[in-house]
Structures are given as structure tokens and as C-alpha cells.
């Protein structure tokens, strides 16, 4: 059960936010590129948000990590739906 949760947690924190960002801002790339970029963007954007929250006094806890990641995913997908597809 612990391993299963760790796998789900890893996919949620290390892939999902980056995947949402690449789906919004990077079109026409193959699946391997998307996988690498999903990991990269997840491992940078989520910690950045958490560090800035830490500096405002909000300490990292599991609920905070889950909520901030969910916000990143939601905003990315909302931007995608709104047709904002380029960060150039």
C-alpha cells in the first residue's frame, strides 16, 4: 500500500503538473520529449511555488503540496481551454 501511494504521489508531483504545462504551451512534440519535459517542469515549477510559499510563512505540508500542485494543474488546463497556447 505504501509503495502504491508513493507511485501515485510521484506521478502527481513529478509528472502531472509538467504534463499539464506541456499540453498547454508545447504542441507538436513527441511522447518522449513530452515525458522528459513533464518531469522537468514538474520538478521546477512545484518546488518554486512551494519555496515562495515557504518564504511567505506557509510551511510545506502534505495538504499544501497537494493543493499547490492542483492549482498549477488547474491553471494550466484553464489556460489551455482559454486558447492561451504560446509562451513566446
Amino acid at each position, binding site marked *: 500500500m505504501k*509503495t502504491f501511494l*508513493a507511485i501515485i504521489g510521484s506521478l502527481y*508531483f513529478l509528472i502531472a503538473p509538467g504534463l499539464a504545462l506541456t499540453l498547454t504551451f508545447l504542441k507538436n512534440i513527441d511522447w*518522449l520529449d513530452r515525458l522528459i*519535459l513533464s518531469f522537468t517542469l514538474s520538478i521546477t515549477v512545484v518546488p*518554486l511555488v512551494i519555496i515562495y510559499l515557504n518564504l511567505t510563512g506557509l510551511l510545506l505540508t502534505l495538504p499544501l*503540496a497537494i493543493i499547490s500542485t492542483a492549482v498549477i494543474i488547474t491553471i494550466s488546463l484553464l489556460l489551455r481551454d482559454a486558447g492561451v497556447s504560446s509562451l*513566446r
Partner: protein
Amino acid sequence: MPSQIQPGAAGKREINQYWLLLPLVILLVSRIIPFLHWPGVVPLGADAAAYLHNFESCFSNPSRNDCLSSPEITISNLLQLAGWSINGVLYGFYILSVVFVGLAVYLVTKEYFDRKAAITSLIIFSLSSSQFLAYFAFYWKMMLAMGLTLVSFYLIKKKTYLVIPVAGLMGSLHPLSFLPFGLAMIAQFIFGQNKKFIFISGTGILLIAFSINWQEFTNWLPYYTTSLGITKNFPTDLTEVFIGHFVNFSYYRQLILIYLPFAIINLVQIIWKRQANLIVFYFLANLLIIILNFIFHNRFIVLLDLAAIILAGRPVLDFINSLRWTWAGRLIISLLIFGLVTSFSYQLWSIEPFITDPEEINELKSLALTEKNSIALTNNRLYLPFLNAYSQRSVIELPLTRNNLVSYYSILDTYQQPIYLHLGEKTENNPELKNNRLFKQVSKHIWQYQGGNKK
């Protein structure tokens, strides 16, 4: 079994993507072998113990000032919250980072050159002795920063501002890796196109990097303002510290003799065509830092090697393609591959961790069971991370020479007692300490100091 080379849509022969699996398997297996070769000890560099200490202490006390804005601590805490064990974060994520760097080599070479060159570069990366040595030294932060740097190059080529968070975090995570990246960006701004994009993204990257880790940047500033950051200008006692913990440039040149000529061929071709190529700028920036002996210049060899591997991919492939049709050509190719594999296998099997005896690790751990107010003592700074990680006691480092024997005891007497001295296998034989009535041997590598005031 599908053929290895398939006709592409445009009529060109395209390489099968399954070829990626070969270097990835080599990469994974070679990085796991040290764990099987050295069971029971910390199989990689001494930095592993230092990271273990930081990751554990910051997870149990996240409000500590130095934990709050540290990117590596945030990543570690996040992974631990996600259910990763401390060893998983320390070693599992580190191996994942190496695979990530490998895939980033593929990604960036594909973007700047082509897919076949990308697979060739990835194969060279997986068999590179210098990259293996970097992995073995346990550069946890640097490994992740290397991957982020390469993906940043990809995002710059794609002209997307997503590069800002990626390179921004890389800069705050590992300022050392940020220096050649920054220099390459400046060169791209001067010589390349899309100046507006480079300027805006560069400004954003700097803002993020400085806002998170301004303290580290300002810590290094005096070395650049007073000595231009060149180690030769430093006082003699600091020169040794600031050359950077990695192989020196002479040894490195021996390690990469097989692919360096190919990297130079590509470099010269690109410069000859007057193309503004970020990878070339990155290579030259690292080379400049190493030749001018900037702070930690030996560490930049790892980054120079990465750029060399990316540049070497295309010429190596052309070389193989031009030779593979003749018997002699195949022989030359086989000899080169044999040389690369042999050199890599030799490094893989001959390298030893700092502590090779599991019993010594257990002794270090046993210090955690001594009196709560005890102090761990070492006379070799290389053991500091291990003592910090395992003893769970205050640690002092006091180097012993024949000249400071008397003052040695008087300094020890100023500390809280009891003091436990650790003399590891890699420490010079210290008969002054080992055969001294003031030190009572507790175990093979631990002595208790018997002098001093009982405070």
C-alpha cells in the same frame, strides 16, 4: 525482429527509437553496480553522507532558516511527503537524475542536430568514464542541475518562456552550474538572433535565481571582486579548497581522448559556418573557466564533458557511416568501441568508495549511542560528512601535525567531554594518537579522549 534502420517518411533512413533502450540500460546497470559491489557501505562519494544529514534534519524540522528556501531540501521534502524513503530520495532520485540527464542529452542533441546524432550522444554519455566518475562523487544537486541546464537549452531553441522557471530553479539550486549557462546566454545575446527573447528570459531567470538563493550568490561575490574568481590569486591555504573536488584537466583529457577529437571537429565546423550555437558557447564558457582556473574549476570539467558529448554525436556517426563499409573500417570502429567500453568498465570496477569497510560505518553509527553531550572528533575533514550524518553528535575537526601535539590537547580540553576520536582507514597513521595514554581505544577506529576537564 524489426530492422534496426527503417525508411523514414521523407525517404531518409531513420534510426529506430528502440535504440534508445541500449544506452538507458547501460546507464541504469552501471549506476546500480556500485551498490552491489560495495554492500553495507555508502557506495558513492562522501557527499552522500552530508546530503543524508541535511535531508533528514530538514524533513524533521522544516522551519529551519536554511531549509526554507533551499531547492534541494524542498524537492527532498516533497518526495518524502509523496512517500519516498530517505534512501529513495538520496539514491533512487539520484539515479533517476542521471537517467534524466541522459534523456536530456538525447533531447538537446536531437533539437540542435538530429535524432541519429542524439542517440549516438546518449550512447557516448552512458559509456563516458568522466560522467561515471561525476556520478560516483555523488553530486546530487549538480546532476539535477545538469539535466535542467540541458532542457533549458532545448526550451531556448523552442523560444518558449517556460525556460524561465527551469533555468531559474537550476540557478538557485546550483550556482556553479549556472555560471557557464549564464555566460553562454550572454554570448547568445551578443552573437545570436532573438535578442528580445534572450534578454527577457535571461532577466526572468536571474530574478528567480537571485530571489531564492541571493545569499549564496553574495557569499561568492567577494572572491570575484578581490581575486577575479581565479584560484591562483587566492591565499595558498585556500587554493587547494577552491580548485574543486573532481579529476584534474590533464587526467580528464586522457579519459575523453576517444570522443574529444569528434567534439572539436563539430565545434570547428559550427564556428567556421559562423553559426551562433548555444552548445558551442556553453562548451567554450566551461573551457574558459577551466583554463583560467576559476573557483572550483575542476568541477566544470563535468559540464565541459557534457557539452563535448553533445557535440561529438554527429561527427562520430558520420565517422562510423564512412568507415563501416570496409573491413579495415569496421576494425577501426570495433577498436574504438572496445577502447571506450574497456576504459569505462575499468573505471566502473576499480573505483572504491571512501569507506570500504561496513564495520567502520557501524562504528560511526555507534557514536549515536554514546553520551548525549559527547563530541565526535576527526583529524581528517573528508570524514566530516560521515560523522555529521551518523554520529548525531556535535562534530569537530582538528587536524593533527607533529608540531601541534601539545596545543592539540589544550584545544581538546576546552571542549565539553567526553570526546570520541574517529581515525578512519583513509586517515594517515597517527601513532601520536593511537599509542597515547590520553586516548583509550574503544573499537577498531574509535578512541575516547581521557584528558581534559570534566565539565
